[in-house]
C-alpha cells in the first residue's frame, strides 16, 4: 500500500477534465485508488466520486494505492497532480 498527500496547484482546481483524466489513468492499473478529503473517501476510478471531492486550488488530498502495480500507478498519478494537470 502506498499513501501520499498531494496538493492541488492549478488555478481552476480539480475540475471535470482533470477528474476524467485521473479516472482514465487509474483505470489503466489493476491497483485500487482511494482518495480522501475532509473525511470522505471515494474510489479514484469513479468520476462522480472524484468530482464530489470538489478540491479547489491549495487544498490537499490523500491518495491510497493498493494492488500489484501500485508503484507504477502511484508514480503516474502523483506525477499528473504535480504537473498541475498540465494547466500551469
Amino acid at each position, binding site marked *: 500500500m502506498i499513501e501520499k498527500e498531494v496538493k492541488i496547484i492549478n488555478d481552476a482546481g480539480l475540475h471535470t477534465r482533470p477528474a476524467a483524466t485521473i479516472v482514465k489513468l487509474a483505470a489503466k492499473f489493476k491497483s*485500487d485508488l482511494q482518495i480522501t478529503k475532509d473525511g*470522505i*473517501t471515494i474510489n479514484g476510478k469513479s468520476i*462522480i466520486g472524484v468530482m464530489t471531492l470538489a478540491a479547489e486550488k491549495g487544498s490537499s488530498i490523500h491518495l491510497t494505492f493498493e494492488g500489484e502495480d501500485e508503484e507504477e500507478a502511484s508514480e503516474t498519478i502523483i506525477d499528473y497532480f504535480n504537473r498541475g494537470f498540465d494547466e500551469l
Partner: protein
Amino acid sequence: MINITEKNIIKKKSISVEFFYKQTKDRFKIKLACENDGLDRLIYDQNLHRPGLALAGFVDLFTANRVQVFGNTEMRYLDQLKSDDRKLALERLFNFKIPCVILTDANKPFEEMIHLAKKHKLPVFVSEYSTTKLSYLVSDFLDDQFAPRVSIHGSLVDVYGVGMLFVGKSGIGKSEVALDLVERGHRLVADDVVILTKKGEGILIGAGTELAQHFMEVRGIGFIDVRSMFGIRAIRFQKRLEVIIELEVWDKDNEYTRTGLDDSLFSLLDVEIPYIKLPIVPGKNITVIAEVIALNYLLKHYGYDAAKILQERLAQRLKKKGGEIGRVIDYFEHDFE
C-alpha cells in the same frame, strides 16, 4: 470487498452554535433573544439538560457542556425570586462554559437574563414550541449531527421499498443495474458515492452527496441526470439501508449460497446488514434478481421464509417414510389444456 478504514468514517466532535441556529431557526421556530456575540460557542454533546437544580444552587454534576433548556418550571422558579437572587442564580449558571440557552413555550427572557447573556456573550434563544416538542426536535437534530457517517463506493436504490446497496469493483456494472432498476420504476438514492449515517442503534440511512445528487456516469455515454431524465418518481433523497449486494465476476472457486437458509451479514458502523454475493454470468439478469431479492426480503419481513418452509416440508416428508415421488395434483380431471 467493502473497504472500511478509519479514513471513511466521519464523526463530528462539535458543531458551532451559529450552525445550530442557522439549521434550526425556521424548523424549530427559534429566535435569538438579543443580538449576541457568542455564536462561535461550540456544542460537544448531543444531549440536552434542564438546569432546574443548578438554578436552585446545586451544581455538583451539572452537565454544563449541554444545551440548556429552560421550560416553564425553570422560568416560574426564576420568576418568584427577587431580582438580586435571580441574578445570582443565573450568574452561577452562566459562569459555566455552557453552549447556549433555549427558552421554550415562548417564555419571555428576564431583563437580568438578557443583561447577563450579553455580559457573558452567551446566546439565548426563544422557541414557540413546548419543552417536550422542542426537546424531541433538538435531540433528534443533534443525534443526527453527531452520528457517525461512512462514505461508500456503490449505488443505493429503493427497490419495492427495500434499500439496496450495490457494491463491487469499478466497472462491474453497478450504475447500469441502478439505471435498469430506475427504468423499471424503482427509485435511485445515490450513485457512486453513498453516505451512510447511523441513526439510533440499528439503523443506517443512506444518501447521496450535495454536489452529485442524482447524477450518474454511464460508461460510454458520460453524465446523465436521473432526476430530470426520469422525473421525480425515479429518485429519493434518503433511504434506510436494508440489503447489501456485492456484484462480482463468477469465480468457480467461490461458493455461492444455494438454499438461503444461512443469512450472511455485513457489519457497518456496528450495524449488521444482510449481505448477498451475486456472481455475474452471461445471460443472468441482475435487475430481475435484485427485484426478487427485494421481494424475498419483504416476504421474510412479513413472516414467510421460503427456504425454511421448503426445509420443513422435506423434514415432514422424511418423517413419514416411504411413499413415491408424487405429482403436485394426483389426478388432472379432464384437463387437456
